[in-house]
């Protein structure tokens, strides 16, 4: 009798119910996320072509990747484009956060502005690529027409045809697409700060920048860390926009916009070198992991 009661109580235990509820997710996650990741690792040590047998070739793929100057070029391109993007993106998001969270200004209509700033993020990247390719057309794009007719420049600028300009154009478009997302997260974090801190600071006569530096910034550090790490992961995996705007995996002009994922795509899907592409994927993963850990270490330090 006592053991039956104990069993019944066990079944009624919510912990077990919770475990049962998440089993479907875990199974799907293991099949569609964990398994492909582990299989990719295995393939990275082979000469797999996407079909047929996968013959083990040791570290050949990794050595090839690390000694290929085009891989390092792609990595540098990616870091360059991501770096400019993150500075502009976070800078703009911060600026807007400061403006909208300022007690003195008390700007109204925050929900409306949040929607407006987030809209670029909702537009499909193919549409963005077509839009900006047209706007930035050297001869007849609206941007050049405006610049030339207003006298700002004498001749049209080749926005998508100069190695010194095109990568940064991609960065700016990425900023336009994502700054709204960063703004929403930073703003939500700021709104979560207890108002008493700001009132106390106001009473003590602290200026706007003092409040920002001593109160706002330290208290939003966790979300800032989250935004920077997710931006890093997303940025180092940049593919869609330069692929669509700059001539496919070639990364025109002259490979200056070829990112690591475009380089990987070329080998994985255009030249049937899946094993090598898998190794490239893992090299990128390791780089992202190392940088993320550094960010956690630096960003997670207590003042």
């Amino acid at each position, binding site marked *: 009798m006592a053991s039956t009661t104990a069993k019944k109580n066990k079944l009624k235990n919510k912990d077990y119910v919770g475990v049962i509820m998440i089993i479907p997710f875990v199974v799907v996650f293991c099949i569609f996320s964990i398994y492909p990741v582990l299989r990719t690792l295995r393939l990275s040590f082979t000469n797999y*072509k*996407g*079909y*047929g047998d996968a013959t083990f070739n040791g570290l050949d793929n990794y050595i*090839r990747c690390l000694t*290929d*100057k*085009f891989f390092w070029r792609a990595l540098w391109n990616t870091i360059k484009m991501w770096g400019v993007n993150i500075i502009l993106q976070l800078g703009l998001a911060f600026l807007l956060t400061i403006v909208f969270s300022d007690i003195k200004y008390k700007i109204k209509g925050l929900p409306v502005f949040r929607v407006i700033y987030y809209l670029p993020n909702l537009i499909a990247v193919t549409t963005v690529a077509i839009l900006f*390719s*047209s706007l930035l*057309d*050297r*001869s*007849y*794009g609206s941007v050049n027409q405006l610049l030339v007719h207003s006298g700002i420049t004498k001749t049209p600028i*080749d926005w998508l*045809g100069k*190695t010194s300009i095109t990568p940064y154009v991609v960065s700016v478009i990425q900023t336009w697409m994502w700054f709204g997302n960063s703004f929403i997260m930073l703003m939500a974090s700021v709104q979560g700060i207890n108002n008493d801190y700001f009132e106390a600071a106001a009473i003590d006569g602290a200026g706007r920048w003092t409040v920002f530096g001593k109160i706002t910034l330290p208290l939003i550090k966790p979300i800032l860390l989250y935004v920077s790490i997710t931006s890093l992961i997303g940025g180092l995996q940049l593919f869609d926009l330069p692929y669509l705007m700059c001539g496919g995996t*070639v990364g025109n*002009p*002259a*490979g200056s916009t070829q990112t690591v994922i475009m380089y990987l795509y*070329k*080998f994985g*899907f*255009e*030249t*049937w070198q899946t094993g090598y592409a898998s190794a490239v994927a893992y090299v990128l993963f390791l780089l992202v992991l190392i940088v993320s850990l550094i960010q956690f270490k630096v960003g997670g330090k207590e003042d």
Partner: protein
Amino acid sequence: MVVSMVGCGNSDNNDAKDTKAETKAAETKAADDTKEADDTKEAEEGGLEGSLVIWTLAKDLETMAAKFVEENPGVTIDTTIIEPADYVSKTMTAILGGDDTIDIIVGEPQMLQPMFEAGMFEDLTAMGCDEFADDMVDYMLEVGQDEDGVQRAISYQICPSGFYYRRDIAQEVFGYDDPESVGELFSSYDKILETAQTLKDAGYAIFASDGELGYMSGDSAWVIDGELNVDQARYDYMDLCVDLYQGGYTTYASAWSSPWYAAMAGEVAYLKPDTNVWDADAVAEASEGADTTEVFAFGLPSWGVLTMRDNYGDTRGSWGICSGPSYGFGGGTWLGISTASHNKDLAWEFIKWVVADIDTVNWWIKTSEGDIPAYIPALEAHADDENEVYGGQKLFQFWLEQAEGIDYSKVTQYDTAIGDAWSEAINTIKTEAGTKEEAIATFYDTVASTYPEITINK
């Protein structure tokens, strides 16, 4: 990929017939009708039975499948058309993933070898393709063979390349318009440049784009015994493309863009080198007030007759087709049987019917309004057909001669990527985005990075 889609797609619209045959063809038609009636009767009396699933990348096989079912009412065929860009990955994923419902699969030349290596295509020699192999154009058979020479796929069409030229312009500028004489104007890269200059002096543009020799860019092999081979012919081709572009001999319309198509119909504007030809507004603005010209020639494979048919407008009847500086080919659809199929016999009956049944091939010639069959008896039967759109030229005879000159043995699995890298180098030089030395150095580095197993001696 757009090229492939155009090349392998045919309209089944029978309303407007552009191609007419003379009396002999009319007699052939009467005979065909009688035979068709007999076939229908035979089908009603028995015929084949079963069902087939076809995964293809253009409408051709869908049209053929409908005809096959008409003749064999006991057969049902389910046809799925997949975009060429997605075809290999989708088909490979399905079949290697265990899908055994697909019976017939296809591929364009550049798609076939990986699929052969993956073991997707059945051995057609074992199915009996030797019985009519001697009646098929050689290069078509070679494309469909794997590394060991086993026949894995065959095609119903051949796609040799040539230049589609304006007879009226040729007569006006050079004093003659017959294909043999005009072919001399395109017989070498030096001759092409001379021709371009003569035409420019007369107010015409030789080509709409500088890529018109893409299907005839030389017959030297890119890789010989594992070593990269960049011979003088390749450099000569590079120099010609750069000269055509920088010398203003073209209208700066990239192939397959709307101004490129428009040039087939007559007068077009000289665009600027940096005009975005894919943006209609940019083209319209660039055309406003610009000098105009007419384009002399387009370099296309045999399926170019369909591209021309859809775009030549008022210039219909003013065209001829001649040879280029080398033999070449482009596109085409090869059929094979999935190794996982459970209906291989029926699939083989369909493929045989498509490629080597004289009645089917004659029917397809009419239906497609210009496709060139790979079946030699059909080519010979139509050898004297005169095409009024092309000045009475005997096109079947011409294309057979061009196809017989193709040497497929020089094609390797590396050609697509290496060819793309060479095109990138040409683009860099012609737009002056880099020097010739830098562009060629980048080309060698790109090949070394892409295929480290290839030996490179610069």
